């Protein structure tokens, strides 16, 4: 079964109602207009009706087809607005999951600090309102779940500005597509992940298990946990595959050619180099790659942990 668009959230009712209302009005207008055109073209063809009338207008008719559309569109507006207001008013008891987006990854942060990346997707309990503040680290993305009829742009904001948000309440168990709907460069079409809707008990079990693993990993290998949660794996692999950026495997200690300020130079990868690569990605560009890596906010400790892990991957 295709689960991409089947109604699956509390918004479907109002959105789909508006949709069908407009659809019915449209079909009515279109059939009327087209029908009348075809009828006239046949009935009043040059052959069938060689002498045209000199009809210039009809005030009554003009009024009718000004007033009726006005009334119809006001209905359309009203129902559209009702549905919209519902989407903008988050229920008090909603559970918060923070959404971060960047080129070209998603990250979902749960209230207990658990983080999920693009490959893992967003897991939520059914029949629970979920409130999602939306952050972007670089350009505008758009958080879109067709089956839930929700969409909101993920806009990078100045310090202190209001963040965008959206919310939904899934009403069906299953996995649904989550797209990025605002053009954000090269891999815009790959910025896709899934929303997994679980029953409440299943969700609780999932959460406990994940959190345990997460906490364990964080304690044992903070670097790997960070690389996973910050979304580095969207562009870097740990098994030698070349993605958007170079693989982390065997990186440490390697000699390679980088372009700095337009000049090529050869370097050996060490702690200091890794540090600048991560803090100021646009300074040294590895030859053969595009300057696409975004600067990510990391504390010095976090960077050290990441570097430790990259070193481990090369041992």
């Amino acid at each position, binding site marked *: 079964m295709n689960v991409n668009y089947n109604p699956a959230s509390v918004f479907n009712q109002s959105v789909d109602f508006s949709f069908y209302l407009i659809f019915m009005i*449209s079909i009515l207008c279109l059939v009327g207009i087209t029908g009348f055109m075809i009828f006239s073209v046949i009935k009043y063809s040059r052959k069938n009706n060689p002498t045209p009338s000199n009809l*210039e207008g009809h005030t009554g008719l003009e009024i009718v087809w000004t007033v009726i559309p006005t009334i119809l569109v006001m209905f359309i507006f009203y129902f559209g607005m009702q549905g919209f207001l519902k989407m903008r008013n988050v229920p008090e008891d909603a559970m918060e999951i923070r959404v971060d987006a960047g080129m070209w990854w998603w990250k979902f942060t749960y209230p207990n600090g658990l983080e999920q990346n693009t490959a893992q997707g967003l897991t939520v309990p059914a029949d629970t309102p979920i409130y999602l503040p939306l952050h972007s680290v670089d350009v505008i993305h758009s958080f879109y779940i067709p089956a839930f009829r929700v969409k909101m742009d993920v806009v990078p904001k100045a310090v202190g500005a209001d963040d965008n948000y959206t919310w939904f309440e899934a009403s069906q168990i299953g996995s649904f597509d989550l797209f990025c709907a605002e053009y954000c460069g090269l891999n815009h079409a790959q910025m896709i992940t899934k929303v997994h809707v679980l029953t409440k008990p299943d969700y609780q079990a999932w959460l406990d298990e994940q959190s345990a693993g997460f906490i364990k990993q964080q304690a044992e290998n903070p670097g790997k946990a960070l690389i996973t949660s910050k979304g580095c794996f969207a562009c870097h692999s740990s098994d030698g595959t070349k993605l958007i950026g170079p693989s982390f495997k065997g990186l440490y200690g390697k000699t390679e050619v980088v372009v700095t300020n337009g000049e090529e130079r050869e370097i050996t990868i060490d702690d200091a180099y890794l540090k600048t690569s991560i803090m100021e990605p646009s300074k040294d560009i590895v030859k053969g790659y595009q300057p696409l890596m975004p600067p990510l906010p990391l504390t010095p400790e976090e960077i050290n942990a990441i570097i430790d892990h990259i070193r481990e991957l090369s041992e």
Partner: protein
Amino acid sequence: MESSPSQSYLNSHTSPKWTSGFMSWFMSTDHKRIGIMYAVAMFSFFFIAVCLGFVMKLQKMYPASSGWEIIPPELYGSFFTLHAIIMIFLFIVPGAPAVLGNFILPLQIGAKDVAFPRVNLLSFWLYLFGAVMAVVGILLGGADTGWTFTPPYSINTKTISIFGVAFDSISWMLTAAFILGWGTILTGINFIVTVHRMRAKGMGYFKMPLFTWSIYATSWLQVLATPVVGITLLMIVIERIMPVGFFDPSKGGDPILFQHLFWIYSHPAVYIMILPSMGLVSEIIPTNSQKPIFGYKSIAIASCSIAGVGYLLWAHHMFTTGMSDFAAILFSFLTFFVAIPTAIKVFNWTATLYKGSISLTPAMLFALAFIFNFSIGGLTGMFLGSLSTDIHLHDTDFVVAHFHYTMFGGAAFGLIGGVFHYFPKMFGKMYSMLWAKIGFGFMFIGFNALYFPMLLLGYYGMPRRYHTYPDMPIFNKLQMASTLGSWILVTGVILVLAVWIHALLKGKKTTEVNPWNSSTLEWQTATPPTLFNFEEDVEITRDPYDYEAFRGEVKAGTAAGANNV
């Protein structure tokens, strides 16, 4: 009635210095020659954009997982940007006013030329300069921002660079768009003054033909909206070169503000595209029904109210950007008010058919197809104007289908109809009716086969500007249908272009003044028109679409037209 073929604008010239060859065109201030030059330039650029669209459709034939890749993602990104920049800034916005507005408007109001013929030529040069600059920009790397140039992406992107970062092709393209804007503005000013100052004796405002009305309304939008986008695009250029953060949040700017400024122009621009075509339809339908247009005054006023109201609803493109809820509701409310004058026009056109004497010339076929396609386009606009449904449909293929229905099924179909209508008058040549109708058939069917599936795709959640898409039966089938449609469509386009080129080169010569028996003024001058349009000053006594009076004049021999209708 036949005209003496001796001195048409095609063999006389405005300048004593350049009397023949290329320069006699390139330096000509004659509004008719300028119109033709625009047409030639525009169609050349347009053809590039059609090819880009065609390739995009090919790319979408199969989903990603099938391994199908005609073009890599970075090319797809620049293709839809260039496709849109050419289609919008080089083709459809300057299109109707510059080609048919230039050619027909002065003839329709009995003027010898536009108010500022030299400024008119300057507009053309600006257009050509900007257009060539844009095309050179494409060759030098192009842009991959979408025609909406949304920051911060447009400020940061370096995806596309042939010469590395040294050549900033995005700033280059933005500057080209800025220059094109000035060409449009000057054309607009020219037409407004022409309409106000140069109408023939006796032609009151409500005796002007409806095409003139629509160009007049368009011109106001051009004058008042274009400068806003001009300076906004320059601000992006400045931001790319210097570290000021007008729209960059990391420097305190608000990226949404750019979208406001962009749509302040670009929403009115969609009415710049459609109004002239509406005007053409208002000419074609009464002519081919041989009866007055239904509700002349309300159509004229509707043109102006579309322009006026059209200025006030730009932010309906921004419902999902996170602007304030109040603004979203306000703009949604205002959006619906533009539907009303549009509805009035649509109903009036259909009512004109009633009790007419209809002949289905190619122009008429395109005009009727315009009504059908544009109704679908406009009605899908209702889904987008309504808040809750737009949240779902925004930035999906539904929007793409909506604007192709309006811009292409509407504006471009109207234009093609207009060209078929005025072709004999412009060149004194007749085209093949049969092949024109066959071309129409292909275009109409292909068009709907291409874009109707996209409406459904959008409803099922297919985002736009996607280089590829996830493998799902519903997506796969609809994408395939849409790609097949594009093949039929392109066959139609090629047929239509071939009909025109054939007619120009080998078509039957005609000097018939009024081949369609139209009652408006432009059909009363020679075919092709003489340099200054009218031999003597004209005086208007009747309404433009008073066919009864017109038939009387034909009988009395004071007007040109076939007697037997």
